[in-house]
């Protein structure tokens, strides 16, 4: 299990205990986090599960592979250096306490 927190732009937060092995796009839609859609189900085709990872967590959330890197070019809110597609981050005990900022399209 890992406690994951999503922080919206207005400061509101949603936290949830997420089962190991689930990806954080699934966890977000299950917990009703706005703006995270996950239309392609996590197969790297839609870029609708974009998050900004809190900087102190970047190393623990792993590497961005080539496909994710390309798909991050078409996020609705422009990517930053801490951008990830949350379907590619898999819950594990090491991520307990992870903070994700949720981009909100205009």
């Amino acid at each position: 299990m890992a406690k994951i927190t999503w922080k919206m732009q207005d400061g509101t937060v949603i936290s949830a205990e997420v089962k190991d092995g689930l990806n954080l796009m699934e966890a977000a839609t299950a917990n009703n986090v706005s703006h995270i859609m996950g239309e392609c189900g996590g197969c790297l085709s839609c870029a609708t599960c974009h998050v900004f990872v809190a900087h102190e967590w970047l190393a623990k959330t792993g590497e961005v592979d080539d496909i994710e890197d390309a798909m991050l070019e078409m996020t609705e809110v422009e990517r930053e250096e801490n951008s990830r597609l949350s379907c590619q981050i898999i819950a594990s005990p090491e991520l307990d306490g992870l903070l994700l900022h949720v981009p909100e399209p205009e």
Partner: protein
Amino acid sequence: MASPIVIIGAGQAAASFVSRHTALGSTQPLLLIGEESHPPYQRPPLSKKYLLGELERDRLFIRPLDWYAEQGVETRFNTRVTEIRPAARQIAVAAGDIIDYDRLIICTGSSARNLPAEIGGGLDAVFTLRSIADIDRLSPEFRTGRRLLIVGGGYIGLEAAAAGRQLGLEVTVIEMAERIMQRVAARETSNYFRHLHSSHGVEIMEGAEMIRLVEAGGRACGAELTSGEIIDADLVLIGIGGSPNIELAQAANLECDTGIRVDGACRSSDPYIYAAGDCTSFERNGQQIRLESVQNAADQGDLVARVIAGEDVSYTALPWFWSDQYDCKLQIAGLNIGYDQCVVRPGDKDQTQSIWYYSGDRLLAVDAINDPKAYVFGRKMIESGMNPRKESVASPDSDLRAIAKG
């Protein structure tokens, strides 16, 4: 109490509608009615990871079952709607209840086509692949060493062929047209996937017309072709496309052609009835089209919620699709209808390429094979109405990012 907004059909479009409706903070009650026993789920993994047994059932659900109640959405699964009565703004369900609606959203989707019963469609060991129930029936037969015959070389057939090889089945695909994927893609894309499947040991027979399935004791055991050849099989999967579920709409005298005809705001010909997803037909660039895709279902469902909330929006989303076969990822941006020329762009690695569809000088669509950059920048170009020169696209040295920036 006010009548609810009633949604018929619990698939991707319905889930998308409900998500947007609740996110917009609307307090108008919703009633979601579905024929299957599950909440809305993702269908694309059915022919991929779910068939391979790599994904648990609950992970197919677009939202967890509890989510609907948490949002105050009433659900009735295992429930078939038998009639829409537009004049009374009511529907009837199979149990006999009559339900009043304030607005009705038809999200009935499409069904997999089967072969006619006369040529074997009703035999045991004949399967279609469109629902969790289909996979429940198919899975016990989908085992190592079995001979799987797939009728139809489109996406479903080819994805199932890949899953079959991955699980150690012997796989034959018969395609009536002169090449697999003929209806959806250019020759170059067909060639790539033919080679991919051949190299994984799938036998692909193109231009192969079937007369009937061969039967033994009520079970299909092969197919007879017009060439006289008999293909033996232990199980048969039919992947010959889908047809929209529009019977209710037709019976209610809603305007229908290849689907339920909707305008740019997904309104049907009745002012209180909307439709979204596979079951709709709509105009795009002067053509009346129907799409079977997650993108279309999700975007139309989302749009209906916005329209009902009073937003002045219309449907302009660019269609996109994907298919995963073995380790190969095909991503498609745009619609290639009416293309007259294709340009092939080699990717920067082995086994990667993209096919760019043009009508004259206008870029219509891109098939990106293991080349997400081509997909992303191709999609951006099409969305912004940019028409890059064919020579620059064809050159592997050109910078797609720079071209897309204009």
